[in-house]
């Protein structure tokens, strides 16, 4: 294992790489964008990350990743603002926050609810970063023993997440995942440079740009939906009180809930594809069970807001554990952040810790520091972010489209990529309307090359012997994990539905 000296040295390297005006400004900018996007219903942090990943192309890797860390943290917290003030969850993870947050707003205590949301989000985020810092380095030591066969199974394990991301329709999710893998094989094959499905179009020889696919799928459908629903009317914005409660008193009173929700969120975050909404549901239920006054939950209980928000921001650090150590994106947002590493030619996995420790530790520092920035922004200006809702849908949608165009063009300076962007945008829009999940498609596109390269490499080394894929204990561990992840997804989805049904019934009652 890495000794304490190396660990501290890497921590210092990361902090030094991050401490410059550009990186700090981008962290602040990213956090503000994240909170604003999170507060807008219909727009997601994944979209904001996908749109801004190409911008990191012209930035230093550390500065670009710092901005994306800010967006990720900010967007998850931002969802609470509209959940509390308008009963609209800005993000799916903020659904549980509505139960008590909006009730508090109705009772004139919105400022107290917002304060609880930002304090628990910050505590959740910081604890999850500390866990990431402690868990990731030991995992890297194990990952260094991986060869092509092991990496093939790691990628297959990553692909099995498709099943978890398809809770509404498993078959449609699997189709989307297989479709993603197929999209990834278009172009020259990695071993012999044989042109596949290129139809003599020279631009297709290098395949589809992953970032263009991601922006098209995640961002454009949201712009199309905004315009599809744009009425041109004025939006109604609710006025809110500014009365606060003493924050440290609140922390003293509910410190167990603050810590417990953060730990629940972090553990759920480490499990690929489990998601912030599951973390919030589990944490909320635990808080209610352990409360002396469980009957107050759902009627404007501040502890309910703390439990929900602490857990959904707790997933941020946890979700980076599989991404940084194994190269598996555990959520759609981390899949988009993976794009930023690809843009800079940085291979995720254990070699990142040995070859570019300053990048890894700077990212961990950025996740930590953006929680502080998020706290300051949320504490002093949460209600200001609500003003972004006044921007007309048409202007917002046009802005998103223009940003997408820049994002698609900047990667290869190729107009063809902009046409492909719109093709994937339409595909994403139709898929959303027909209840095909988008995340499995992106996962297929991202993991397809990893699967193919390592499969071919393992077969070449073993002279075509397929059994070489099962030669090591690590391979077998990942075979079992893949099967468990795939078949366990069915069970998890059923459990999640039971949790949600139970809360819906209680809330209605």
């Amino acid at each position, binding site marked *: 294992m890495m000794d304490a000296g190396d660990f501290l040295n890497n921590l210092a390297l990361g902090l030094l790489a991050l401490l410059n005006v550009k990186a700090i400004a981008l962290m602040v900018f990213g956090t503000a964008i994240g909170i604003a996007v999170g507060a807008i219903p219909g727009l997601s942090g994944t979209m904001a990350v996908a749109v801004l990943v190409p*911008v990191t*192309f*012209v*930035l230093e890797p550390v500065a670009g990743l710092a901005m994306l860390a800010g967006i990720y943290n900010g967007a998850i917290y931002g969802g609470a603002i509209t959940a509390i003030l308008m009963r609209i969850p800005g993000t799916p993870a903020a659904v549980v926050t509505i139960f008590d947050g909006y009730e508090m707003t109705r009772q004139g205590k919105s400022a107290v609810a917002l304060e609880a949301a930002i304090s628990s989000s910050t505590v959740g985020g910081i604890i999850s970063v500390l866990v990431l810092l402690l868990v990731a380095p030991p995992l890297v030591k194990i990952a260094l023993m991986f060869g092509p066969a092991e990496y093939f199974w790691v990628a297959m394990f990553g692909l099995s997440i498709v099943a978890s991301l398809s809770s509404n329709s498993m*078959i*449609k999710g*699997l*189709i989307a995942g*297989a*479709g993603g*893998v*197929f999209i990834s*094989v278009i172009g020259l*094959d990695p*071993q*012999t440079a*044989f042109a*596949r*499905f290129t139809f003599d179009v020279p631009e297709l020889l290098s395949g589809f740009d992953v970032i263009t696919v991601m922006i098209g799928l995640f961002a454009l459908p949201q712009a*199309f939906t905004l*315009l*599809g629903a*744009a009425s*041109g*009317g004025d939006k109604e914005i609710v006025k809110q009180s500014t009365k606060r409660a003493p924050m440290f008193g609140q922390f003293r009173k509910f410190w167990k809930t603050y810590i417990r929700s953060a730990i629940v969120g972090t553990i759920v975050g480490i499990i690929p594809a489990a998601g912030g909404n599951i973390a919030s549901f589990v944490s909320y239920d635990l808080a209610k069970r352990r409360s002396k006054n469980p009957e107050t939950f759902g009627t404007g209980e501040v502890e309910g807001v703390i439990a929900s928000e602490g857990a959904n921001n707790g997933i941020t650090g946890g979700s980076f554990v599989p991404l940084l150590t194994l190269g598996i994106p555990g959520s759609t947002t981390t899949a988009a952040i993976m794009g930023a590493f690809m843009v800079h030619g940085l291979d995720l996995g254990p070699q990142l810790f040995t070859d570019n420790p300053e990048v890894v530790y700077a990212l961990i520092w950025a996740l930590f520091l953006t929680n502080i920035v998020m706290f300051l922004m949320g504490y002093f200006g949460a209600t200001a972010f609500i003003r972004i809702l006044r921007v*007309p*849908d*048409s*202007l917002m*949608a*046009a*802005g998103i*489209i*223009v*940003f997408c*165009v*820049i994002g698609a*063009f*900047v990667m290869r*300076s190729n*107009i063809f990529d*902009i*046409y492909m962007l*719109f093709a994937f*945008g*339409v595909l994403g*829009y*139709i898929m959303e*309307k*027909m*209840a095909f999940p988008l995340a499995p498609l992106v996962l297929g596109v991202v993991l*397809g090359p990893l*699967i*193919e390269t390592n*499969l*071919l490499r393992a*077969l*070449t080394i073993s002279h075509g012997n397929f059994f070489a894929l099962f030669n090591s204990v690590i391979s077998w561990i990942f075979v079992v994990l893949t099967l468990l992840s795939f078949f366990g997804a069915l069970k998890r989805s059923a459990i999640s539905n039971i949790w949600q049904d139970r809360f819906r019934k209680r809330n209605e009652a």
Partner: protein
Amino acid sequence: MRSDFADLTIAILVIGLAVPGCYDAVDFRSGAKLLPLLALATLIGLNTILIVKTILQKHDVKKINIPILRVSSLLLMCLTYTFLIEKIGFFISSTLFFIVIVGIFDRKRLVPSIFASLGVSAFIYLVFSLGFSIYLPTGELWG
């Protein structure tokens, strides 16, 4: 459109594209055809299951509402916008795109929106082109 009809259409379409894809892939070099064939065979199998499932589960039918006119006109505008980016450059075409979108979808605020469009386009252009030093097309027409 009914969701069962849409699912059947999509499944048949995907199978219709995947089968000739398989024929193509069989002729690829040995290493190059492995994953494409696996992916296409999986797509054919899964879509066949979707067809059978859709036919058997008739009770779970929903209505899919796609504003076809709005989306297709928006797509046409996007394609025209892309064409114009190549010809007259990013700044002018983006400004026009903003004005057209806001003009069509939000007629109430047309005049302020024109100024907002100009401002937003200029801001985006300056931030990306000067701030981040990102090359944005200047247009073939201007050399």
